[in-house]
């Protein structure tokens, strides 16, 4: 299939068209271009996927050699195997639905053209990221999605807060990217290539398991992954990134971009296998993140922030999976998560859209009857998120927990942590449902979602429900995972926990059997809820450790310390000038005297030398 290059090109081209039109295009055309291009791309991907499933052979396509300096010859080339196909399908499929949704959501916005340009650009970049056959091209896509995320988070640029959030997103991820770049340097210097497959081969031939170099290299790559996927310690940007339009959050900050880190690790798993410590670190980072984020999600009141934290936590699950070597299940969870998280965000967006931009869940309520479509989609989404049995989320998360259990030694701990996380997920997701859709109404919706909004919701509902039945063509990519043979007890526990969470949520937020207020009122409760509301105060920490010092430094250097040296020289010259000019008295006798002094001086010098 030579037309592969069309897939990223379509959205890219339409993005360029939209940019060049500089907002002069009629909305209809913009919508058509914006959504249509992605749709076409999706169709191409579908065709590609069909062929791939038919023969299952890896496809490679080289467009041209990017640059050739000595042995450094990265190419603009694509490498398409099962993993890529899965990612492409998610990106274009979910992407298309979200574009469709955006048409209605953004219809009244003056700069819808810019919006779709950015969105298409993002899709293109993301496609390049997953299709790249060498790490440099991947890095291109990597930074590209970063840029688009920056542009879209700061889309409503008039509000400085949005700009701030956008900058935060870009810079924090840039930190990770820099680590990743260093990783690339190291890999190339050591292995002499950045083409992924040859690199993995070379790595296996050069390095033994547990060597220091692969550990360093993978650690650096992990840095990049952590940044993009909003894991500890670089997760702080994601909650703020909700400043962008909701579909953006759905596409970038839930469905696709944030999973790039997961993709990177899965793509280079060969390296991670050589570095057990990093591998383990991945697992622990995942676990820690998913717990912290879940706790933080409990206390949020902004609907989007809750979803944002849940995203972080879910990606934590994926990292956990990667860490325990269950790559397939990790990717599986990535896919299902893409479905239900997109669904949730779109639904949330619809709520916000219909409640004229109300974000606070406690000012909503009682929407069950007023916005049925949204209610049902939200319900399904939450169910999948909480991994209630037979939803898509259930299958993927279950698989992850089981394979965590399998790991000798730390396994049970990871498993227990995962379970705790699962319960928390149940609580916060249904807290959301109960508070928003049940109880008494605080705000009246002023409109109903149109078909352009409804259709994606419905489709995603179906996917979220049945997504678990999908079979991903990953067999050729990852080593076959040992079939989990855990005891049934483990099975039941992991099935039961989410339900427990649901129950708790019901008791706390709907049944009012035990009031949340009484819990939150205790000093401990208040302290905790405050701590969680502020996301464990990690932002303040970074502010104190990085931001303020940097500001201080730049302020201190502001007016050029180096120049002081030169100014000192200048004033020295001026001083000398004035001293010397003071001798020019204009008095004849003094001049004569000075002549005599000069004479004496010379004699003195001569005598000094004479002796």
């Amino acid at each position, binding site marked *: 299939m030579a037309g592969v290059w069309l897939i990223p090109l379509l959205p890219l081209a339409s993005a360029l068209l939209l940019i060049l039109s500089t907002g002069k295009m009629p909305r209809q055309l913009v919508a058509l271009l914006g959504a249509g291009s992605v749709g076409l791309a999706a169709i191409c991907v579908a065709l590609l996927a069909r062929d791939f499933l038919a023969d299952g052979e890896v496809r490679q396509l080289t467009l041209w050699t990017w640059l050739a300096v000595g042995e450094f010859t990265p190419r603009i080339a694509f490498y398409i195997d099962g993993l890529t196909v899965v990612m492409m399908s998610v990106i274009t499929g979910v992407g298309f639905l979200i574009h469709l949704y955006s048409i209605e959501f953004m219809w009244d916005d003056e700069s819808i053209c810019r919006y779709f340009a950015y969105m298409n650009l993002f899709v293109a970049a993301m496609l390049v990221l997953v299709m790249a056959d060498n790490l440099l091209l991947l890095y291109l896509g990597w930074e590209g999605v970063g840029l688009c995320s920056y542009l879209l988070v700061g889309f409503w640029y008039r509000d400085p807060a949005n700009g701030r959030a956008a900058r935060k997103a870009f810079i924090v991820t840039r930190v990770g990217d820099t680590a990743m770049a260093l990783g690339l340097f190291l890999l190339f210097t050591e292995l002499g290539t950045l083409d992924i497959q040859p690199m993995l081969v070379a790595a296996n031939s050069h390095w033994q398991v547990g060597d220091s170099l692969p550990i360093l290299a993978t650690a650096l790559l992990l840095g990049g992954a952590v940044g993009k996927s909003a894991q500890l310690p670089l997760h702080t940007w994601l909650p703020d990134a909700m400043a962008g339009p909701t579909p953006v959050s759905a596409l970038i900050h839930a469905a696709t971009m944030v999973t790039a880190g997961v993709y990177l690790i899965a793509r280079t798993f060969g390296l991670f296998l050589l570095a057990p410590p990093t591998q383990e670190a991945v697992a622990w980072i995942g676990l820690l993140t998913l717990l912290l984020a879940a706790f933080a999600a409990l206390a949020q009141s902004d609907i989007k922030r809750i979803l944002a934290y849940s995203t972080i936590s879910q990606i934590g699950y994926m990292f956990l999976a990667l860490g325990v070597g269950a790559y397939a299940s990790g990717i599986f969870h990535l896919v299902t998560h893409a479905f239900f998280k997109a669904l949730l965000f779109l639904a949330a967006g619809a709520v916000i859209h219909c409640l004229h931009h109300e974000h606070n869940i406690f000012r909503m309520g009682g929407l069950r009857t007023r916005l049925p479509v949204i209610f049902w989609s939200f319900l399904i989404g939450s169910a999948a998120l909480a991994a209630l049995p037979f939803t898509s989320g259930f299958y993927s998360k279950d698989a992850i927990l089981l394979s965590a259990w399998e790991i000798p030694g730390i396994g049970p701990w990871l498993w227990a942590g995962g379970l705790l996380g699962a319960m928390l997920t149940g609580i916060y997701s249904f807290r959301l449902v109960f508070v928003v859709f049940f109880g008494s109404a605080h705000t009246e919706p002023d409109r109903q979602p149109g078909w352009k909004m409804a259709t994606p919701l419905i489709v995603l509902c179906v996917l979220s429900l049945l997504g678990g039945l999908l079979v991903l063509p990953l067999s050729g990519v990852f080593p076959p995972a040992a079939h989990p043979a855990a005891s049934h007890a483990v099975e039941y526990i992991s099935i039961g926990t989410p339900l427990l969470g649901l129950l708790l949520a019901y008791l706390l937020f709907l049944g009012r059997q035990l009031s949340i207020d009484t819990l939150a009122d205790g000093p401990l409760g208040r302290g905790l809820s405050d701590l969680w509301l502020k996301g464990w105060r990690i932002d303040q920490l970074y502010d104190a450790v990085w931001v303020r010092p940097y500001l201080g430094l730049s302020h201190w250097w502001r007016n050029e310390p180096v120049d002081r040296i030169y100014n000192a020289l200048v004033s020295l010259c001026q001083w000398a000038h004035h001293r010397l*000019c003071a001798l*020019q*008295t*204009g*008095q*004849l*006798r003094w001049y*004569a*005297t000075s002549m*005599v002094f000069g004479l004496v001086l010379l004699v003195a010098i001569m005598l000094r030398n004479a002796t």
Partner: protein
Amino acid sequence: MSGLQIPMEHVLALAGLLFSCGLMGLMLRRNIIFMLMSLEVMLNAVALAFVAAGAQWGQADGQIIFLLILSVAAAEVAVGLGLVLQIQRRFKTLDMDQARRLRG
């Protein structure tokens, strides 16, 4: 040569003395006339030195230079006095410390 011989060193020393007197005058006097006079003294000291040296070597060159110096000194002073007249007319004084328009 008959008569008492004066060693050249003594004459040179005298010349040096005269020369320094001239210099001192230049440095200490404020009246332009006196300055010119001390200039004269200096030049004549030089002339004396030449004469003494010429005598020492038994050459006429010393005297010749002496004559040259005399004429030169005359010229200098002639111009100098011309200027003095001008100064007297313009500055209404001969005190050179008053003439300090040019400075800095």
